[in-house]
């Protein structure tokens, strides 16, 4: 009995440490990402960049559809597709980029990685915490971009989003966010692991990843337009299913088929990330890359 109690106590201490590491990762992430300037400049930074990306996609749509003269009904549906794709793509882009840069930041720039690594908590809860901090920032960007973008396009270009508050499937929409975030953090963890044993790859790796996701995930055009078998890769990505669930739930369609795929691809991504991270951590210790300083 005493042994069982001891095991339970150890497990609860481990859980407590893990949760605390995640929370501290969130707190540190928030500090590092925001305290380089005053709150006003930070807020501008947080909002201006995603709004510009979303408006850019919207303008490509406006100019392309004006040149082709497509009908008004399909115009609004296609606008909804591209606009929501661009807005919600902020989640994977922000999370994967921030986690891909994290090794460089912690290891070379602030030389803090070795100190984080030798704490009793594992590195993984810390990475998850940093990922959640990015997801919180991304949520602010998503909400503001959605509002500002829809106002601009409906007022200046007569493009209205066919979203009706009464038809939105809020449950599916709310469920899709943590599921998507979990998948993107897992993807970020894989990039983190690659950066842990390599050098000078952090910029290209994150840009490759977001570029590939942007092209293959049906963000601004359906992935079925891609040549076979590239389109199959797109169909397997969690980003594609995340955007499908978001679009379906906003329109009030049945989102649960896509939700099942999102859940499946998220679980798969988490398993791959954990196995990959575990393997890479041991390689990093053997190679001595955890505290390597120079990497410019």
């Amino acid at each position: 009995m005493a042994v069982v109690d001891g095991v339970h106590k150890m497990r609860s201490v481990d859980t407590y440490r893990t949760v605390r590491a995640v929370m501290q990762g969130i707190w540190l992430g928030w500090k590092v990402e925001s305290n380089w300037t005053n709150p006003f400049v930070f807020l501008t930074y947080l909002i201006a960049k995603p709004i510009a990306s979303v408006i850019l996609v919207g303008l490509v749509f406006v100019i392309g559809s004006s040149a082709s003269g497509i009908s008004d009904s399909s115009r609004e549906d296609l606008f909804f597709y591209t606009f929501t794709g661009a807005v919600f793509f902020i989640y994977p882009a922000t999370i994967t980029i921030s986690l891909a840069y994290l090794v460089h930041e912690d290891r070379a720039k602030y030389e803090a990685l070795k100190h984080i690594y030798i704490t009793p908590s594992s590195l993984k809860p810390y990475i998850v915490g940093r990922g959640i901090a990015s997801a919180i920032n991304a949520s602010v960007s998503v909400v503001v971009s959605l509002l500002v973008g829809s106002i601009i396009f409906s007022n200046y270009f007569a493009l209205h989003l066919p979203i009706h508050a009464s038809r939105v499937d809020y449950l599916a929409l709310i469920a899709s966010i943590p599921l998507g975030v979990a998948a993107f953090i897992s993807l970020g963890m894989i990039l983190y692991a690659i950066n842990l044993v390599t050098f000078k790859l952090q910029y290209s790796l994150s840009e490759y990843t977001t570029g590939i996701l942007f092209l293959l995930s049906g963000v601004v055009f359906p992935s079925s337009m891609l040549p076979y078998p590239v389109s199959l890769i797109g169909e397997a990505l969690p980003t594609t299913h995340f955007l499908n669930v978001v679009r379906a739930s906003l329109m009030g369609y049945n989102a649960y088929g896509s939700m099942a795929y999102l859940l499946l691809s998220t679980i798969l991504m988490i398993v791959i990330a954990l196995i990959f991270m575990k393997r890479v951590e041991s390689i990093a210790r053997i190679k001595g890359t955890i505290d390597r300083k120079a990497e410019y």
Partner: protein
Amino acid sequence: MGTSDIMDDLILNMKVVYARAYVRLKGLLREPHWSIAEVIIPLLSLSAYVYMYTMLNAPAEYMAFVIVGGAMLAFWSNVLWGMSAQLYWEKETGMLQHYMLSPASRMAVLLGMAVGGALNTTLRSISILLVGTLLFPVEYNLIDINALLIVFLLTITALYGMGMLFASLFLLYGREATHIADLLQEPIYLFSGIYYPVLSSQIFSQAVKLVASIIPLTFGIDAIRLLLIMGRGIGDVTLHILGLSLLVAILLPLAYIALRRMEEISKRHGRLTLRWQ
């Protein structure tokens, strides 16, 4: 100062320009995966926009607009990350103090970075254009190659003039340098018309076009598209040439003044060797 002193000074600074440009060109071979990435990554996003225009049934020239814009985007990325943020990175790696201690002109250092960066990026830009043209069914209609060369050289000079100006301003920055450079990406893509025409489009108001004209890329991309895709001649891009010439005449002296001023402020505030701010 005698003639020989002026000559010595000139030779020294020419050597500095060569040395700094050499680093940029050598970097092509030293880190080949970076060069490959800088061709492939823009191709990924420009492909998405080509597919988007295809989805919308836009005329074929819009695909060519995207590919030309994507090729010119390489220059803006280089100006931002290879020029503007460069002095910040030199500070982080401890190199900036060596520049400051040497007898070389700081402008020669910036000029060397610009020359090396422009040559290096021209290769990448041509690669993007070639691969993009191979991947997608686009057609060009170039009838005035001299006008194209004039516009291209003016665009590059104005762009790197802007890069030299930004590099001076970034001298004061600490950690915010990368965030500011990051912030200057998408909004510039938006205004300069990387993926769509701005100056020749009816969608944008005159006020927007005027604001967009402050960015050399806007004039440059618009004129290159007119010459390379729409088959126009020098007469159709006179305004663009005048605009770019004006930007060159303003930006280069402004970069010189800003560099002197920012160096003085940085020295007074002790920021030249400050890291991890």
